[in-house]
C-alpha cells in the first residue's frame, strides 16, 4: 500500500486523532505489571528499523479466563460492524462429567510468515508490510473473498455493510434507530492510519477485514487493544527480535505451540498451552 507508511508516520505524531502513549518513565516498582514492561519494550522496538523488528503475540491459555474482553476491546477499537470479528475466543469443553473443564483459545490473525492468504489475492490487496504484519489495502480489495477461503485459521471476515442498529425502530424525537442513534457506527475508525467513515458502499464495506495487531496503535507507541484489555494478563506482545523482550523469553520455552504448524504458515502468534 503506497500511502501506508506516510499515514502511519502521521499517526505516530498524533496527526489523525490517535493518542500517543505517554513515554514510560523511570524504573517500575519491584513487581511491575507486564504491560509496563511490554510498553517499555515497544518504545525500544520502535526506535529500530521496521525490518529489524519481529512483532509476535504470545497467548497464555492457562491464564485466559474466557472473559471476551479482548474481543470487545478489538471491536470497539476498530469499530467493527456485525459479522466482522478480528479476535474471537474459541471455547472448548474438555473431559467428561464430572471431570469437565473449559479451555479458551483467543484467535487473532496469526500474521503468518508464509501467509496463504496473500498469495491468493488477485490484486495484491493483502500483503505482508515492512513490519511483517499482514495488512489489507481497502482501496485495492475487490471483495472476491479468496483470502478468506485460503486462511486456515478462519481469521478473516467480510464486511457486508451491516450495522448494529439495523432493523431497530425509528421513533421521531427520540434517539432510536439508524438515522439518529448510529453516529458511533458511522464515525471513522483509524485502521491503517486512515480515517474511514462508513458511508454507503464505500470501503471498508465490501472488503475483507482482519486483525492487524492494531498497527495504528503500535506506531503511536501503544500496545494492541486486546493486549492492554486482557484482565488476566494472558496476552503478551512485543518484538521477538529483541533478545531481552518478554515475548522472546516466552517463545523460547518448550511448552510453546503454534496452530497448524504442519501447513508451513509459520504463525507469529504463539500459545502457551
Amino acid at each position, binding site marked *: 500500500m503506497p500511502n501506508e507508511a506516510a499515514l502511519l508516520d502521521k499517526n505516530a505524531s498524533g496527526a489523525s486523532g490517535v493518542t500517543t502513549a505517554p513515554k514510560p518513565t523511570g524504573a517500575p516498582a519491584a513487581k511491575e505489571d507486564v504491560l509496563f514492561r511490554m510498553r517499555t519494550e515497544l518504545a525500544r522496538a520502535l526506535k529500530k528499523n521496521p525490518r529489524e523488528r519481529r512483532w509476535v503475540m504470545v497467548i497464555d491459555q492457562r491464564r485466559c479466563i474466557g472473559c471476551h474482553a479482548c474481543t470487545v476491546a478489538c471491536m470497539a477499537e476498530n469499530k467493527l460492524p456485525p459479522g466482522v470479528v478480528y479476535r474471537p475466543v474459541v471455547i472448548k469443553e474438555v473431559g467428561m462429567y464430572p471431570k469437565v473443564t473449559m479451555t479458551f*483459545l483467543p484467535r487473532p490473525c496469526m500474521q503468518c510468515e508464509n501467509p496463504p492468504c496473500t498469495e*491468493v489475492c488477485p490484486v495484491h490487496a493483502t500483503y505482508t508490510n515492512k513490519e511483517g504484519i499482514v495488512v489489507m489495502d481497502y482501496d485495492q480489495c*475487490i471483495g472476491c473473498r479468496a483470502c478468506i477461503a485460503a486462511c486456515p485459521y478462519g481469521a478473516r471476515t467480510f464486511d457486508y*455493510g451491516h450495522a448494529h442498529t439495523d432493523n431497530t425502530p425509528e421513533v421521531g424525537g427520540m434517539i432510536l434507530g439508524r438515522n439518529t442513534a448510529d453516529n458511533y457506527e458511522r464515525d471513522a475508525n483509524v485502521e491503517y492510519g486512515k480515517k474511514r467513515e462508513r458511508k454507503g458502499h464505500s470501503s471498508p464495506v465490501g*472488503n475483507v477485514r482482519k486483525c492487524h495487531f492494531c498497527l495504528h496503535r503500535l506506531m503511536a507507541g501503544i500496545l494492541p487493544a486486546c493486549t492492554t484489555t486482557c484482565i488476566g494478563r494472558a496476552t503478551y506482545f512485543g518484538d521477538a527480535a529483541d533478545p531481552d523482550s518478554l515475548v522472546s523469553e516466552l517463545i523460547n520455552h518448550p511448552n510453546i505451540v503454534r496452530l497448524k504448524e504442519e501447513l508451513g504458515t509459520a504463525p507469529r502468534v504463539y500459545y502457551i498451552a
Partner: protein
Amino acid sequence: MNKKSAYIVGIITLLIGLWGFYDRFAYGHDHAAYGSVVVWGLWVALYFLFGGLAVGCFLWASLDLLFEIPACKGTGVKALWAALITLTAALIAIAFDLGHMERFWKVLLQPNLHAGVAEDAWGYTIFGGLTAIALFRAVNQKGKDGVLKVIMVLGLVVSLYVAGAPGKLMGVNAARSFWHAGMLPVQFLFFALATGAALLMVILTFADKKEKLESSLSILHPAAIILLGINLYFTWSYFSQGIAGGMPGIMLPAQEIVSGQYSGLFWGVQIMLGGIVPIVVLALNGKNNNIPLSGLMGLCILLGNGVSRYLILVAGQKVEMLPGMSQAVHGPGLTLTYSPSTSEWAVASGLVGLVILGLLIGADLLLPMFTKSRQEA
C-alpha cells in the same frame, strides 16, 4: 418443448432475474445468504457451471471448425455462439459476487498472476477474445480459412487450461482439505466437456434443419455417455476415498453430501438424473436419434453437473477452521449453514434467462443475419 415455449421460459426467468439484478445493485450483498464462513455460494457455483459450459462448447466447436469431422459439420458456429453467451453469464455471475464489482478492472490491469482468481480472469478474457474472433471468422468463412484454424488451435490450448482453472483455484487451497485434491482440475475439464455436449444436445433440439444435425447427435450421444461415465468414476473415487480416509476436513464434507443434508441432491439429481438416467436413456436410444428426448437428457446432464459444482463448492466450506469456531462468534454471515437466498435465486434465474434468450436470439436472428449479409456480399 417448442421454440415458442423456450422463449416464454427465457422471458419469465429473465423477468424474475431483473428483480434480483435490481436487488444486487440497490442493496449490495445485504440480501445474500453467503457470509464469512461459507464465502462462495450459488453465484460462484454458477460461474463454475457457465464457465465450464463455455469451454466445453468451444472444445466441441473445434470438432467442426478445426478437425473438420464431417458428422459435426454445421455445429461449430452454434457452439461458438453458445460459448460466448455462457461465458457472459459466467462473468456476470462472478461480478455480482464481488464486494466491489466496480474494481473488476484491477484484476486485469493490476493482477497478481500467482493467484487463481487472476489466472481465471485473464484465462477467460483471452478465451473470450479468441472465441469472438473465431466466431467472426466462422460466420464470414469463404472456403478454407487458415486464420480460423490458428485461432481455433490457440483457443483449444487456452480452453484446456481454463477448463481446469477453477479446479486449480480450489485445489491449491491447502486450508480446505476437501478441495485439496490433485485431480480436481481434471474433473473440471471432464465436467466441462460433458456439459458442453449436453448444451449442444439442447441447442440442436431447437435447430430448424434437424436432418442435417442428426449426424452430430450420433457423435454427441456416445461422447456424453462416455463423459458421464468418467464423471461418475471421478465422483466415486473422490467421495469413497474422502470418507474412507477419515480425515475430518475431507470426510465431513463428503459425508454431508453423500449421507447428510445434501444426500437428496447428490443421489437424486447429480447421480441419478444427471448421470445414470441420461446414460441409460441415450444408450437405449441407440442410433434412433429422438431429438426431443436428446434435448431433455441434455437438460438433465446440465442440472446434474450444476448440482455437482454447487455441492463441491459449498460443502467444502462448511468445515470449522478451528474446532469450536462456529460457536465462538455470532453475527450475520458467521454460520456454517448456507442456503441460497431469494435474491441469489432471482439472480440465478436471470442468468439462466439471459442464456436461454441469448441462444434463441442468436439462432433466430443474429447468426442467420450475419450469414445472409455474407451471402449478399
